[in-house]
């Protein structure tokens, strides 16, 4: 599959797609996007890379085992939920840090964003686990 055109295009595209996926992840709370969609986009980028450069190169570029990514994602989501328990609220209650209330609120960060990052990592890890395993198998 490693044709010159694909390789050259991949070089250009992968970075752009990854930036776009992070953009999707963080804009999710206000506009279409979110952790799941972002992870799918990132998965596409890595799949493209794996097809053009080979699974081994993709693993090297990724640096860590995708299964670890999955586990880290689940733990992140869980941590976001447990934060509320530590603050003496029901599990997974959204906590926000910022100032003001209601429609006037200026929010900086909240546990739902962290939760969404967990979703992102879990889905990305799972996709990569499968894509790389299949690519190596074939």
């Amino acid at each position: 599959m490693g044709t010159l055109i694909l390789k050259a295009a991949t070089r250009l595209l992968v970075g752009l797609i990854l930036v776009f996926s992070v953009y999707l992840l963080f804009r999710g709370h206000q506009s279409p996007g979110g952790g799941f969609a972002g992870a799918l986009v990132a998965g596409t980028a890595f799949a493209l890379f794996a097809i053009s450069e080979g699974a081994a190169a993709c693993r090297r570029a990724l640096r860590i085992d995708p299964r670890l990514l999955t586990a880290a994602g689940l733990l992140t989501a869980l941590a976001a939920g447990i934060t509320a328990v530590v603050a003496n609220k029901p599990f997974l209650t959204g906590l926000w840090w910022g100032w003001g209330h209601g429609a006037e609120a200026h929010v900086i960060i909240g546990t739902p964003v962290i939760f969404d990052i967990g979703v992102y990592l879990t889905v990305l890890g799972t996709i990569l686990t499968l894509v790389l395993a299949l690519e190596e198998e074939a």
Partner: protein
Amino acid sequence: MSASRSAKVRWHYLAALLPAGLFALLAVSLPATAAHQVLRWEIDWVPALGVDLALRLDGLSMLFGLVITAAGAIISVYSGAYLGPHRYAGRYQVLLQSFMLAMLGLVMADNLILLFVFWELTTFTSFLLIGFTHDQSEARESARQALFVTGAGGLAMLAGFVLIGRVAGTYSLTELLSRGDILRQTPLYPAIFILVLAGAFTKSAQFPFHFWLPNAMTAPTPISAFLHSATMVKAGIYLLARLHPVLSGPPAWTITLTSFGALTALTGALLAFGQTDMKRILAYTTLMALGMLTLFLGGTHTAALVAALTFFLVHALYKSALFLVVGILDHETGTRRLDAVRGLARAMPGTAAAAAAAAMSMAGFPLFFGFIGKEIMYDGALSMDFMPGSVTLVAVSANTLMTAVAGILLVRPFLGKPPQGQVPVHEAAAALFAGPLLLGGTGILFGIIPWWVARWLVQPAVHALGHDGPPLAAHLFHGWNMPLLLSIVTLSVGVLCYVGRSVITRFLRRWLAACPLTGDAVYQGALQGVQWSGRLPTGLLQNGSLHRYLFIVMATFVGLGIWRLAAGGQPPIWGGIPSLAYREWLLVGLEAVAVAAVVVTQKRLVAISSLGVVGAGLALIFLMFGAPDVALTQLLVETLTVIIVAVVLLRLPDLQSRECGDRPVRIVDGLLALAAGTVVAVMLLNATTPPLDRDVTAYYEQYSLLAAHGRNIVNVILVDFRALDTLGEITVVALAGLAAFALIRRERHRKGGQKWEP
């Protein structure tokens, strides 16, 4: 051993701090429980179901808790030296401490459901510990057997607990203790009794479930010392003791416990004789002890309960010490065979001293705690409600055999002269023999000051079972009475049995060979039956053909859909052909062409791409009707699916028409596809006809920004309002990914011809 490795081993000794610290915590509370106080600690867990995280420390829990933590600390240190720089030594310690905590939770739980949770945790951790040497098929087999037998019993016990909860109206043990009469009089009593007993009998390896315990000896020896002598097998005993005030009394309780206990005790004591593996000998003598404990819990008088709880302590002390000694012999000489080594006492004085102290206690010589235990046992046996004469006879016979076995275990390997050519043996490391020495020494100490044990440990435990009685007269010398006479008989006949052991062994072997049915055989038969009955439907349903799987799934869907629609009674309302804009017609046309291409093409790539077009078209429809989030996700999933499927399928040859089956098969498939499409269409029509209830939507619209600071309601629902659902979903995603990964890798192993064991 490299320096870093040995430094690592030293870290493993630190694990002992956990049980040692817990032991100290319990010991501090000793005056409170000795004064018959009950310490409770509680937080709500599932209040709607009456399930609380409630712990309770009374005399009974204290007795068990002290044994669990003390043995835990000793075994942790011992294991550090026993395993050395083992590859999985860290995993082992984690499992060991988890088991210890679960066991401690079990004996301190004040809620039946919580008790069940801890019970299953001990089952689970013990499964992993028995199968610790998982590269041996024997260890895996025994671990599985222990899991099946005790797990099945645990489930039965849960059913019994639920019945108790229904009848008594509470799961709290503290409240249950005052409601025993309700339980004893309910018509459900037999069901409760049998179910709870199933749990206790499987866990404590009572006849006819006794077979798993000797098989579990494939575990590392310190594990056997911990699980199979002092703690886990005593969980069933604990349960029987704990529920004694609530369930005992009816003849069913007395007769069942007495007779099964006696049967187990005699079976264990006799079978111990025929063995040559020292560890298996100990396993069978443990059966004897468990049987005696069950037998005494069948009694309702104070003397019987005192006997049970005293003997529990006696047995925990000497049996775990003996297990550890056998572990040392195995470690230093490489064999556990009784006839393999002789005369080790000179080379291993520390180990020999520990073995002597424990074995003398087991045999019941005066000045050892075992002697006191035996006196109290005979006292209890004479007070039994059900056939006291026979019970006393059983107790005397079993103890006699124990005396002989203790002699065999001590004299054979340690005394005498080492034969010519025996490989020289060295004393074990101090960390190995210190533990059994401490346990044996405690046996002597308790034998000299039995009144202290009675006052601080046994008496409060008996009080927790609702029996006050007169203060125990636990002294070395009770005066010339029946128990003392029986003790003398036991010791002297025991010595005779030791002398004539070859005769008994020969007789036993002949008798065993004639025995037609063993519990092990029944277990194996049942296991094969399950596999056989599973193979039939598996062969029918899961023949490996994707075509058949899809057919079954779709046919079920169509069948259920038609059934529901017919039951609904309302015919779908067809609003006529809707007026669509030209670009919408274009989309419909595109979808139709793509579907046709999927059906007709012989090229896989064309089929996959066409399917992608269908999915992308769907995304466009979502976009047109105002669901950008869904459209985005749909498009991305579609893209990724095409990529993944392409990676797999491009390696396969072109679709041949014969792969899709003969003409009749294809016609049936086509009809099914049409039917599935029709059912979905009708369902959609039905779903969209009545006006939508917008209450929920309105709620989200109102609060999305105010409460959750998000304008994208779809995302706010996913990560905030219904985050628990999402958490569940990503867990499923992760697990499904791992399962698929395992399957893909398995295929590789099979191709590579490597060994793969599930």
